[in-house]
C-alpha cells in the first residue's frame, strides 16, 4: 500500500511539475487517473483505497476544486474496477486496461462536470467549464492522451515486475 501511495504521489508531482512537457493543444493526460486505473487492475481494492484518497486530495487541492470531489471519483473507480475484475475481465490483459481507461475518462469528465454544476448551485466556488468545449474539445484529446499514458504506465509496471521478480499478482 505504501509503494502504491508513493507511486501516485510521484505521478502527481510529475503531472503538476511538467505541464509544458505534457500539454498538447491545451490538454494534458490525466496521469493520476491513469495510474489509479493501472494500480487498481494490478492490486486488490483494499490496497488501492489509501492511494486513491491521497491522489484525490492532492488533485483537489492543486486544481482549486472542492475538497473531496476527486476522492469520491477515484474511490468509485477503484470499486468499479474491482467489480469489473470479478464479472467482466476474467483474464487481465492490456486491452482490458485500454477499455477501462476509455470508459473511465468519459465517466470522470461527466462526473467533474456534474459535480461542478451541482456545487455551483449550492453556492460553492467552482470553475465552470463550457459543456461544448469540455465534451467536444477536451474529452477526445484527453481520451487519446490517457490511453497513451495508461499504456506507458502498464509497460513500466510489467518492466518493474520483470526486473524485481515480483510474482504476486491478480488472478
Amino acid at each position: 500500500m505504501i509503494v502504491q501511495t508513493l507511486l501516485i504521489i510521484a505521478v502527481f508531482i510529475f503531472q503538476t511539475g511538467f505541464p509544458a512537457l505534457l500539454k498538447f493543444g491545451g490538454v494534458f493526460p490525466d496521469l493520476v487517473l491513469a495510474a489509479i486505473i493501472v494500480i487498481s487492475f494490478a492490486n486488490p481494492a483494499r490496497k488501492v483505497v489509501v492511494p486513491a484518497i491521497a491522489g484525490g486530495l492532492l488533485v483537489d487541492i492543486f486544481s482549486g476544486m472542492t475538497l473531496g470531489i476527486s476522492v469520491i471519483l477515484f474511490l468509485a473507480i477503484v470499486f468499479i474496477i474491482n467489480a469489473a475484475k470479478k464479472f467482466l475481465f476474467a483474464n487481465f490483459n492490456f486491452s482490458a486496461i485500454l477499455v477501462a481507461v476509455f470508459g473511465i475518462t468519459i465517466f470522470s469528465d461527466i462526473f467533474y462536470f456534474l459535480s461542478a454544476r451541482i456545487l455551483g448551485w449550492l453556492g460553492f466556488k467552482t470553475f465552470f467549464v463550457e459543456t461544448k468545449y469540455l465534451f467536444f474539445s477536451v474529452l477526445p484529446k484527453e481520451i487519446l492522451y490517457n490511453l497513451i499514458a495508461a499504456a506507458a504506465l502498464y509497460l513500466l509496471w510489467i518492466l518493474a515486475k520483470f526486473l524485481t521478480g515480483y510474482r504476486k499478482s491478480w488472478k
Partner: protein
Amino acid sequence: MRRIFSSKVFYLFIMIAVFSAIFFLDFKGFLDAPKNYTISFFKPIAGFFYNASGGGIQKLSALFSVGHLMEQNDFLREQNIKLQASLSKLAEFERENILLRNQAKTANNEEINLVFASVFGQSPVSSNQLIMVDKGANEGISEGAAALGVGNVLVGKVAKVFSSSAAILSIEDKTSAVGAISQEKRIPGILRGDGAGGLIFEIESSKESPSQGEKVITAGENNLFPKGFLIGEAGEDISIDAEALKKIRVKPMLRIDALEDIFIVSQ
C-alpha cells in the same frame, strides 16, 4: 443490529456523511490550514521539477530550430534598432511628461505595488488552467488581482488565495473573461481564452475591427486590476455574420505554460 453495521448500505451512509462534512468544512474555510500545509510541503519539489521542465523545453526547442536561427538573428537585429529608436523617443516623452506634471503640480497616485512570485506548478486537470505561485495572503495578495509576466504583460487573474500560495486563472483558460481595449482605435470588448493557448477578443458587431498587429490592453476593473497592461496583438477576424459579437483572434505576448516568475498586483 450486527447485520445493520456490517451491511454495505451502512458503509455507504457513513461515506456520504463523511464527504458531506468535508464539503461543509471546506465551504466554511475550516480546511484552509491543512490545504496550506499540503501545498507548502509539495511546493519545493513541484517547483524544482517545474523549473527543470521549463529549461528542458527551451533546450529542446532550440535543438529543433537551429535552421531558423540565422533568419531570426537578422530579424531581431532589425527589431533591436527599431526598439532603440522607440526608446529614445520614449525618453523624450518621459522628460516632457515630468515637466508637464511638475508644472500642473499633480502627484502620481497610480503607483502600483507588485509582489514577485515564483511558479511551482499548474493545475493537474485539463478542464482548468490554474497556475500555482508561492506567494499568498501573507504577502498581500487578494482574489481578482492582475498577474503579470515579464514587461507587465497580463497572464491571468488571482482565482484563489491561501496564506502562502495562490492559484492564478490563466487568461487562456476557457472560463477567463477580461475587460480589454485596443490601444490605437480604442475599441472596447471582452477578451476570452479559447482553452488552447489563444485568446478571442469579443466586440460589438457595429464597431470597427482593430487592425492586425494592434496591441490589446486591459481596460481596467479596479485598483487590483488596473488599466493599460499589455495582453496581446490583434490577429484575424474569425466572426460569423450571424453572430451578435465580432470575434477577433488575439495572440498572447507570452507563453503562459512556460512561465517561471510572475508579478501580482497587491493592495
